[in-house]
């Protein structure tokens, strides 16, 4: 009897809903923007005993009330705060919110270039990597302008902004100008822990147009600058991260015409080689795909002729080689950044003894390491119509 009573009491005390949080009592944060706090509204901030008004943190919150039926009405709104600690700012923002802020559904973090010119990426992401509410797969973007306007952006399809911005990068597999495979929070943290150089996708807004393209390059966690879409294409070829690609070349027989190749499948191998004290890498790319488009006088389209197709294969291979060499020149010779430690990781994996010898001088050695590229292209079809 007594043990039964004790058991019931303990069951009441230890079970229950200590952690209960009702859906209607939550404000879902969908996107986070980090800017410099150059100018700020004194009402939206707080008195700081420590630190300075360094950053402006903006949160895009899902407005469950309106549902976005109005023509220009957004189904999100943005709150901001200024300070130094993101956690402190978030908690102070509860003074502007009727419900608790819920970070489990954050889709993107957008960081302005001005912030990255002053602060390392690792420092900025520390709060997001520690908190157990955060998703590992949220996307991180860099913008040359301010982050807050991107959070206020109303997508044409009236999707919540954070989800829209996040979905753009999910199409990276088909867009050779966007590198999205290893640019999420979990990957960035992994590269930071490995002391690797890393990349983050670039997002820009002009008027009512928002576009993703190019990359921000980081040496360790320090912002180095941007690279253009052509460099991104070369990077994706090197990493074998493209699932599909569009390659455009001038027609070998009529230079004012253009022929477009659509990649379907590829086999890419980057391998390190060590001969005595010399280290070099070989990149072998084999690509298979179709002719996707012929731009010009269609009467001159010879794609049914196998000799012409063979000529095209060589021309496409040359173009891909040129793109890779262009990327390699920008990264290796100009920026001197082995992004995502691609070459270092290969050397460590396949030549561990050599890596042990050179790992401390890798940053000095890397810019002079030769890359030998071999590309073969196979056109398997000319499309469904000539």
């Amino acid at each position: 009897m007594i043990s039964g009573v004790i058991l019931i009491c303990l069951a009441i005390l230890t079970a229950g809903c200590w952690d209960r949080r009702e859906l209607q009592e939550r404000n879902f944060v969908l996107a986070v923007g980090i800017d410099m706090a150059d100018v700020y509204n004194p009402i939206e901030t707080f008195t700081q005993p420590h630190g300075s008004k360094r950053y402006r943190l903006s949160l895009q919150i899902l407005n469950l009330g309106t549902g976005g039926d109005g023509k220009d009405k957004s189904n999100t709104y943005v709150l901001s705060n200024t300070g130094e600690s993101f956690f402190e700012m978030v908690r102070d923002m509860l003074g502007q919110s009727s419900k608790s802020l819920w970070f489990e559904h954050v889709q993107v973090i957008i960081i302005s270039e001005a912030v990255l010119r002053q602060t390392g990426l690792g420092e900025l992401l520390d709060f997001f990597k520690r908190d157990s509410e955060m998703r590992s797969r949220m996307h991180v973007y860099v913008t040359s302008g301010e982050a807050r306007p991107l959070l206020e952006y109303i997508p044409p399809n009236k999707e919540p902004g954070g989800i829209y911005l996040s979905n753009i990068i999910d199409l990276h597999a088909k867009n050779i100008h966007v590198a999205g495979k290893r640019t999420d929070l979990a990957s960035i943290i992994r590269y930071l822990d490995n002391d690797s150089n890393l990349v983050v996708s670039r997002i820009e807004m002009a008027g009512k147009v928002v576009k993703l393209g190019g990359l921000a390059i980081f040496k360790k966690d320090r912002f180095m600058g941007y690279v253009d879409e052509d460099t991104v294409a070369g990077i994706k070829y090197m990493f074998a991260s493209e699932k599909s690609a569009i390659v455009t070349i001038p027609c070998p027989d009529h230079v004012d015409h253009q022929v477009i190749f659509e990649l379907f499948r590829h086999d890419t191998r980057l391998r390190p080689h060590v001969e005595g004290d010399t280290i070099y890498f070989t990149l072998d790319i084999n690509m298979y795909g179709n002719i996707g488009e012929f731009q010009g006088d269609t009467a001159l389209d010879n794609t049914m002729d196998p000799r012409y197709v063979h000529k095209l294969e060589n021309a496409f291979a040359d173009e891909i080689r040129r793109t890779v060499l262009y990327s390699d020149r920008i990264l290796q010779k100009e920026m001197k950044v082995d992004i995502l430690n691609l070459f270092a990781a290969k050397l460590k994996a396949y030549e561990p003894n050599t890596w042990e010898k050179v790992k401390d001088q890798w940053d000095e050695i890397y810019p002079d390491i030769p890359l030998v590229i071999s590309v073969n292209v196979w056109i398997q079809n000319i499309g469904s119509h000539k």
Partner: protein
Amino acid sequence: MANLEAKTYMSPLQLGIVVIGTCVGAQVMLSPRALITALEQAAWLSIIIGGVIFYSATYLMLTLGRQYPEETLVEYAPRLFGRLGGTVVVVWFNLLFFLQLIIIFSGVGKIITFYMFDRTPPEVVIMALLIVCTYCALQDWGTILRVQQILFFMAYGMLTMIWMTSILNFQPENMLPLWPIKIKTVINGGFLTWPFYSGYECVLLLLPLVYRKASFAKLAKIMGGAFGCMTLFFLMIIIIIIGVLTVENAKSVPYPVLIVIRSVELPGTFIERLENYLLLAWIPVVFGTLSTTMFYMGQVCMRQYRYADHRPWVLVLVPIIYMGSILLLDDQQVYDTVSKCALWTGLGFSFGVVPLSLMLSWWHKRKAVARCG
């Protein structure tokens, strides 16, 4: 009326399942970071070496148990080591279970609080788990055995299935170089895998139930199979952690298993945040380990103090286990020190006490034969 749950015999296969149920538990979540920090890229190889090492220790225990097929270590230890020595050995044996219990309770409390119920104090989580485990440990062996068998097929299957989804993020190159440069460190590292395999010591308590009907050869073979399964399971954990996170990343997170599973996105489904599902599958596994270990502690006390029932002892141990677990909660240094103590206690027992007991038993037998002769 006869107690239908009292068990006087179990098959070698059932013993294999119980050993797996006792060994594979909380440590899959708690120990990978420490192992990867110590052994880096070669942690997977140490898991295999550890499997061989601890199977050897179990083999010695089976051999020792064969010398006394009707008794447990608690009964024959005083005959081998004398009254005081025997008591030391029995206390050592029970301390091993106690240290494992408090480490697991404390670790589980921390994990569940951090990832699932952040407003609930870990003390309350531990208390709730302790109550459930106590209820199970108060049953007779027949019930506990059945619980272990059910968990073996259900909870372990679910845990493995959820964990395998993390293969979607696996990058084989993170595993390279596969062969370590410092082989000696890896071999020594085999001993560091003890927290993964710990719990196999329970055979010294359960062998009389098996030896009544089974042969040594069959038992050794089945235990080999059990260790093979455990090694495969632990390998799967370590290889996927390194393959997904890299060594450096795994070193920086307290619970790499949860970080690995957290980053899984199942294409075409709305299911996300898989760490919660993994934790839900892991809790029954932990429950299996904890309740059987509490039962072992109760049994050791019962036999040592010649009681007829283990239940009062389980109830006496509850506050001690609770206090021990709470002490480890707030100070990481204390937690690490106790973990180290557990490691050395376990290694000392398996590779000091057990071989010594075996040698003494042989010596006693030879002496008896010589006397008769």
